[in-house]
């Protein structure tokens, strides 16, 4: 860049020059996906995000003839809602619009400019009000407001804002009380250090994603993809990194409970972290011999590791396992009678805590089991290889992976049914819901147990049939439960406590 480019405003741009300093690969592969057939979305990489931002600006600029940098500031002011911007642009007072968005009206750009301060000492020079250096005008620059400082001071000023304060999109002019915002092109032109430039670009893309209702970062740690939808809804979206989450709230996909109740629940769990920690503890004592038992798989059927004891018991209720294997399984349900007895014996608060612990315990239990999912996938992979050695084809052994997929889906659904159930007030439909939950819980534990230990003891053809029967049953119970809850939402069956 030669010194002729350092002219007075230092801020001219042609309308569609939106070079953002990031190389955007041409024709990058963006494809529309969907989990629910009717909820399409796209997964965007950092390059796609920048391209999308540029497209938004160009879209506006085909209608409104203002510099692209001004458009970006205006769009950001309207949270990247193009329609809102257009509406205000054509219906309202434009001067007011530009003023509110802290940018100079480009139609009036040369009328409100502040006069550069000429130095008292040397004619034809200016004094930088930040470093007090007296410099030729070619070494001074500024925004359209006319406040001028030297290049080095601008660089230092922007660097402080970006690196110390983490401001990107809303850096104001360095002059006191001047609200005019530094546009991205000027910032990129003035910044020297590549580290700072990169951070600035991150801040800009981040604010683009964060203010844009139709975009959401994948919440998975270290993932830099964002999801783009065409309308906001509480629906599952799957990132390219493999993480599936709710677009509306960003939590793991949480059907059947709704975002607002889940949020309330998570807050409660955080507030009660003391008790939650206690519940989440990974070890319990054997109810018969008191040996410490660690839960190392997803199944609730525990066998004491003490060779002299070998007690079979249920991890959740610590009761003997035997009744759980039969129709007496009653472990997923808060027993109203017992609760009443407890209330008689103990204080009210104590019983509320116990009720909470009951649901929290089951919620945490499924969460814990889901964490062992990778272990189970690895074990199943071994089994699949073993079966392939026994003359089964690759395609024939895929049922095992499918079984684990379904097991995990069931656990995730079950986990959130306990959040739903915690807030649910008892009525006829809630009793049906609890029956469904009980069925699913039982079927899921059976499938889990089967996958974890029973599989090697039988012949392969039988196994395939049994596993398929079990996971199909689980899958159908899960869908049945979800359909019932959704029907309840439509028909207003559900009443909530507090």
């Amino acid at each position, binding site marked *: 860049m030669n010194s002729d480019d350092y002219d007075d405003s230092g801020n001219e741009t042609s309308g569609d020059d939106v070079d953002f300093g990031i190389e955007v690969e041409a024709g990058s592969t963006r494809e529309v996906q969907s989990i629910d057939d009717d909820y399409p979305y796209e997964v965007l990489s950092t390059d796609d995000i920048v391209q999308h931002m540029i497209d938004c600006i160009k879209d506006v600029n085909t209608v409104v003839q203002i510099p692209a940098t001004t458009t970006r500031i205006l769009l950001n002011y309207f949270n990247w809602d193009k329609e809102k911007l257009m509406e205000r642009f054509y219906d309202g007072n434009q001067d007011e619009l530009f003023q509110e968005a802290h940018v100079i009206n480009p139609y009036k750009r040369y009328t409100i400019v502040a006069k550069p301060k000429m130095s008292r000492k040397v004619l034809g020079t200016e004094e930088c009000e*930040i470093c007090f250096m007296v410099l030729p005008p070619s070494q001074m620059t500024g925004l359209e407001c006319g406040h001028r400082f030297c290049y080095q001071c601008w660089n230092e000023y922007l660097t*402080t804002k970006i690196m110390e304060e983490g401001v990107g999109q809303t850096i104001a002019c*360095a002059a*006191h009380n001047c609200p005019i915002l530094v546009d991205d092109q000027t910032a990129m032109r003035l910044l020297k250090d590549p580290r700072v430039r990169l951070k600035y670009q991150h801040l800009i893309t981040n604010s683009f994603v964060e203010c844009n209702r139709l975009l959401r970062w994948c919440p998975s740690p270290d993932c830099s993809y964002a999801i783009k939808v065409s309308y906001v809804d509480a629906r599952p979206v799957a990132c390219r990194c493999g993480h599936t989450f709710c677009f509306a709230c960003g939590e793991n996909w949480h059907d059947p409970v709704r975002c607002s109740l889940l949020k309330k629940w998570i807050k409660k769990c955080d507030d009660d972290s003391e008790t939650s920690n206690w519940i989440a503890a990974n070890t319990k004592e054997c109810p018969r011999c008191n040996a410490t038992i660690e839960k190392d798989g997803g199944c609730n059927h525990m066998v004491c590791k003490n060779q002299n004891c070998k007690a079979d018991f249920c991890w959740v209720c610590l009761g003997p396992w035997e009744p759980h294997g039969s129709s007496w399984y009653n472990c997923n349900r808060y027993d109203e009678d017992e609760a009443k007895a407890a209330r008689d014996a103990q204080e009210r608060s104590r019983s509320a805590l116990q009720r909470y612990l009951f649901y929290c315990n089951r919620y945490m239990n499924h969460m814990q089991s889901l964490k062992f999912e990778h272990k189970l996938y690895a074990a199943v992979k071994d089994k699949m290889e073993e079966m392939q050695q026994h003359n089964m084809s690759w395609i024939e052994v895929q049922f095992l992976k499918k079984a684990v997929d379904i097991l995990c889906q069931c656990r995730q659904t079950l986990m959130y049914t306990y959040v739903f159930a915690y807030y649910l007030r008892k009525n006829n439909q809630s009793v049906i819901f609890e029956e469904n939950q009980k069925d699913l819980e039982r079927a899921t534990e059976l499938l889990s147990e089967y996958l974890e230990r029973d599989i090697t003891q039988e012949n392969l053809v039988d196994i395939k049939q049994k596993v398929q029967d079990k996971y199909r049953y689980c899958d159908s119970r899960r869908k049945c439960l979800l359909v019932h809850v959704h029907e309840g939402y439509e028909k207003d069956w559900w009443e909530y406590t507090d």
Partner: protein
Amino acid sequence: MAALPRRIIKETQRLLQEPVPGISAVPDDSNARYFHVIVTGPEDSPFEGGLFKLELFLPEDYPMSAPKVRFITKIYHPNIDRLGRICLDILKDKWSPALQIRTVLLSIQALLSAPNPDDPLANDVAELWKVNEAEAIRNAKEWTRRYAMDN
């Protein structure tokens, strides 16, 4: 200690050559970034007749970040707390590197003339300033007499 930036040298020179009426700011003999400041209480304010001592420190990244200023003399004011810390926007988010020691001290002087109990730092003082301004002003005068007049 690193060499003093040109900006600080020049600013100090100008401050000594063209002092602000009612304000004196003198750099410490051993630390050119540390200033001993005296502000006289503005006329027609409850602080009239008082001489208020402040300390002002220019941090490493000055002027990119604001100077640190604190009242040493006790003062009864809704925007100044017991430790002498000052609630003033230009010392926080409204700081601009184009501001100077001079402008900061002028703003502090203006704050003495026009207390702002709606943006308080000292809550009890601000409360009284709002519910019973006459009594608050009496307190401010009393504190000025007691702490800012015997030097």
